[in-house]
């Protein structure tokens, strides 16, 4: 069966890829730069380059089909695989192969990446469409893909409303920096309406993508955060500018101008995912006729232990993070949260926070790692989420200011991002090691336990790796690409500056 399945998947991938290639070409034409492998045949007669482009798109799509054919994935999972795949092809195609063929060597500088930024969004677009079409033309797993019901749609819309409320609030704080992007909520009421509708619609789309999410709250949160990014790209960078008649806003300058809305969308996505999950759980609790056999225990059962282990892991992670904190002189800033100033009090506050976030990791990601690799993946993803929520959002608020999400600020906080990733990675791995010390999932005591372990493992591995890598890939490269070459951050108050890194000259020139 295997022998036939692989070519078939490749074929489906090719079809999907070709179709996505059309969309890609349309988008690229719109934004003015078709930076793909196909652009090397630009010189040839008109039409030929288009054919070449479609052929390449189909071939790349076939690769996608081959890659994901062995996994049993829902539409939503495939979407993230598609995005990851698209982004990888941006590195391979736009930044490596194309320049190699054109200029004789790969150009991997930030400047080159910045120039190719529209193409990045094009590639993401391509990947997403390939994945969705592939999902549409591939029969689901034998036990059926989860079905969309009235309940899921309702939960999605409600979650969307909750998310929209948050989104509006968050974007409102960024109005001064969103300028003429159409997102500034300072005055315009169409913008208000757009943001609110975007939020609600996002909830609905999320529900359609994940009709019955099986994973725990933590993985759901990461998924939601990433969905927030996708929704930002779709709404703020594409739909809104299109509506306003300006065409896709995928160029460096356009993305920079809309970047302040991105953290808002990420937090929005996280909230939507959590609320959606809770609503579904509540719905199951109240309305499901038959309690579907659940072999998972309630969070409460092992919750205390998970909190304890998470807190310990948080402590270790916090110590790792301290190295970065000390180096960039961030501790006194942290101390200001409690009104102190010395590095030592900062260190204490920092450890307490690390502890609490670690404990929350334990609760959210309990039993969700099936090896050091996945532990690392969840950990760094969670660390990234807290970079957005912590230094970018809560810290300025706790220090009595307001969050400011310009690319310069994000660029100035890259050391903190590195610290958060290191923290998250350490938390994930330490927590996992503690967990398997008590419960090594690979030593089953009954056939039933073995089957459960295997199923959970397959679930985690099949869908989650795309999430982790996409989170980190975007999290690292976007701030660098956008911040690089911008004028020095700003000359705010000492406190605010402290919150964003000690020197305002961080966003230096771009080599």
């Amino acid at each position, binding site marked *: 069966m295997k022998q036939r399945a692989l070519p078939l998947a490749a074929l489906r991938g090719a079809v999907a890829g070709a179709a996505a290639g059309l969309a890609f070409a349309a988008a690229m034409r719109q934004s003015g730069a078709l930076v793909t492998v196909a652009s090397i045949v630009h010189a040839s007669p008109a039409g030929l380059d288009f054919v070449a482009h479609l052929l390449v798109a189909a071939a790349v799509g076939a690769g996608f089909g081959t890659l994901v054919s062995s*996994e049993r994935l829902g539409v939503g999972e495939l979407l993230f695989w598609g995005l990851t795949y698209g982004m990888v092809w941006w590195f391979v195609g736009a930044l490596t192969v194309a320049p190699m063929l054109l200029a004789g060597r790969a150009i991997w500088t930030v400047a080159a990446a910045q120039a190719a930024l529209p193409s990045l969004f094009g590639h993401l677009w391509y990947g997403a469409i390939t994945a969705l079409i592939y999902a549409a033309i591939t029969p689901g797993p034998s036990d059926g893909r989860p079905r969309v019901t009235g309940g899921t749609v309702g939960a999605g819309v409600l979650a969307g409303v909750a998310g929209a409320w948050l989104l509006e609030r968050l974007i409102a704080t960024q109005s001064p920096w969103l300028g003429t992007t159409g997102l500034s909520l300072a005055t315009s009421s169409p913008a208000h309406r757009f943001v609110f509708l975007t939020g609600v619609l996002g909830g609905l789309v999320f529900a359609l993508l994940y009709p019955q999410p099986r994973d725990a709250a933590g993985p759901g949160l990461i998924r939601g955060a990433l969905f927030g990014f996708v929704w930002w790209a779709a709404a703020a960078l594409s739909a809104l500018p299109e509506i306003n008649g300006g065409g896709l806003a995928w160029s460096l300058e356009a993305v920079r101008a809309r970047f302040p809305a991105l953290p808002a969308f990420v937090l929005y996505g996280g909230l939507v995912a959590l609320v959606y999950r809770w609503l579904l759980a509540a719905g199951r609790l109240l309305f499901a006729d038959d309690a579907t056999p659940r072999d998972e225990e309630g969070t409460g059962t092992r*919750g205390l232990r998970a909190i304890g282990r998470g807190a310990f892991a948080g402590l270790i992670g916090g110590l790792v993070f301290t190295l970065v904190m000390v*180096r960039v002189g961030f501790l006194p800033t942290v101390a200001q949260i409690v009104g102190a100033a010395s590095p030592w009090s900062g260190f204490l506050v920092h450890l307490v926070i690390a502890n609490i976030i670690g404990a929350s990791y334990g609760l959210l990601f309990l039993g969700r790692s099936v090896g050091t690799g996945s532990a690392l993946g969840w950990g760094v993803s969670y660390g990234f989420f807290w970079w957005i929520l912590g230094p970018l959002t809560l810290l300025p608020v706790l220090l009595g200011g307001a969050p400011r999400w310009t690319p310069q600020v994000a660029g100035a906080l890259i050391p903190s991002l590195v610290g958060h990733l290191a923290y998250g990675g350490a938390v994930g791995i330490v927590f996992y090691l503690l967990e398997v010390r*008590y419960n090594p999932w690979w030593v089953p005591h009954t056939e039933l336990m073995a089957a459960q372990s295997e199923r959970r493992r397959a679930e985690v*591995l099949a869908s989650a790796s795309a999430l982790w890598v996409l989170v980190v890939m975007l999290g690292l490269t976007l701030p*660098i690409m956008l911040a690089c070459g911008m004028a020095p951050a700003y000359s705010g108050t000492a406190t605010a500056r402290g919150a964003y890194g000690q020197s305002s000259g961080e966003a230096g020139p771009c080599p």
Partner: protein
Amino acid sequence: MNTSIRHTVVAGGISGLVAGLVPALSLDVNSPGTMSVGPAGWGAVSVALQLVLAMLGGAGFGALVRDQLDGRAATAASGLLYGLLWWIVGPLTVAPMAHGHIPTWSLRDATATFPALIASLFYGGVLGGVLPLLTGTFGNPRASARCEPVVRPVRRIVILGGGFGGVSVAQRLEFLLARDPSVQITMVSQSNYLLFTPMLAEVAASGLEPQHISAPVRAAFLRVEFRHAELETVNVAARLVRTRAAGAARIDALHYDHLVLALGAVPNLRRVPGLEAHAFTLKSLDDANRLRNHVIGLLERADVEVDPHERRRQLTFVVVGGGFAGAEMIAELRDLVHSVRRFYRGIDPGALRFVLVHSGERILPELGSALAAYARRKMEARGIEFLLGARMAAAHSDSVVLADGRTVPTRTIVWAAGNQPHPLLRSLPVERSQSGAVIVEPTLQVKGLPNVWAVGDCAQIPDAFHEGSSCPPTAQHAVREGIAVAENIVAVLRGIAPRPFRFRTIATLVALGHRTAVADVRGWRFSGFLAWAMWRTVYWWKLPGLEKKIRVALDWTIDLFFPRDVALLTASPSVPQGLDAPEPGRGASSVPTPAAPPPPAT
């Protein structure tokens, strides 16, 4: 672990080498900001160094993802992630250090090393793509099912009793043997829950719900096999335990390699005539419920009683035994009655009597004299009478008779003056103390039977800190003894000598009702509200599981604002037990009848 770690590390190293070639070839290594290692101009040396690093990185990747090599997309994605982290560790952190700079992780550095970031991505992607090819899982993604095959256990440890001692042994064993499925851990217990005895008096006093202090033992285990059954006999020669499934006649035989006795103790009611028929005990949930219903039933009767003598008897509550169990019990009884008295308008508060009978000259011998005196003062101020130096001579349905001839007319006698180890132990061919406890070595092994261990109230364990005396029968000790036994059993299984048990009481806390308590923490003495807060905090924290903690916290909160519940939950509440004839079967739950002697050891 199907794919051995060495295999994946080697395969990872090779993949790393292959992956390292990609960026090395595609870029001019000496251009600024790439993954170049060593000073500019090293050329080939730099490339070689870089390849060595790439190989090491690959080996690290192999070790990291050895559990998840079975999905090609998953592994490739993990490779990319690894590449990104590799960029942070390498070009962003180690490289500046190698050149004598302190890493800053700043945007400037990130920008400068951006080419290396992409190179790292390529490296990681190729690494993640090649590794599954080398470990042979590419074409057959689900071939390396990661679970080990289910192993049939070849050895068995049987734990008798699911109280503090037994559960502690089982939990520790489960942890120590987590990766050793060849040893089966079996627990046999009459009750399928762990009874949190420190709060039992509060249940009897209607302050807590019975279920809230009983934690199902199954919930505490991941792999321990639990058998809800009663122990019938132990045959130490044949290493065989016979059990009778709860509520059934079926007898099962269990073979053991190691046996742990943790059967606890039962009240000793034979000491005084009339006790078995007329006294309440406080050892099980049944006991607590019965006592609670009895007291409320008496209040109901007294409220309408016309005979003043009978009413006096009904409103007199006697607890025998001035240790911590007795002191806590009388204090809780008083709290119960005073909390609900308002519902019984026919009862004169002045007619209520609470009497503590104690054979010693001072109560709470477990504590120092200062604390004991404080406790007595406090309780006397609340109207509790003390009959000290008084031995109980007989119990009747309507009175307690003391050795000096005094009588206390009462309808309620609670016995808290002595337990005895589980009577089943008498059938074992082992050395026992006067009270009937199994005498064990300092390693907790039963004398003469190295594969039989005993913990808790049923064992007499030498106290390592007080020559000649033995460990007190408390939960505090039982839990530590359990841990020690588990560790010793595992040591013996692994051919290591077991170690003697050493534990010194950390704290003795006694609740005296109504937000007062006394506490002795390693010689530090506390009393009053602070000690009460300590009592609540400590025992609340010790409650097994989050769920029970929440439930008890809620009960306590409700208790702050509402009177206790006086709903009578017996079928015939109007006839308090112990009033006329001994109720059939009462006491039977507390005092199991000794089983027939075991078959002679062969």
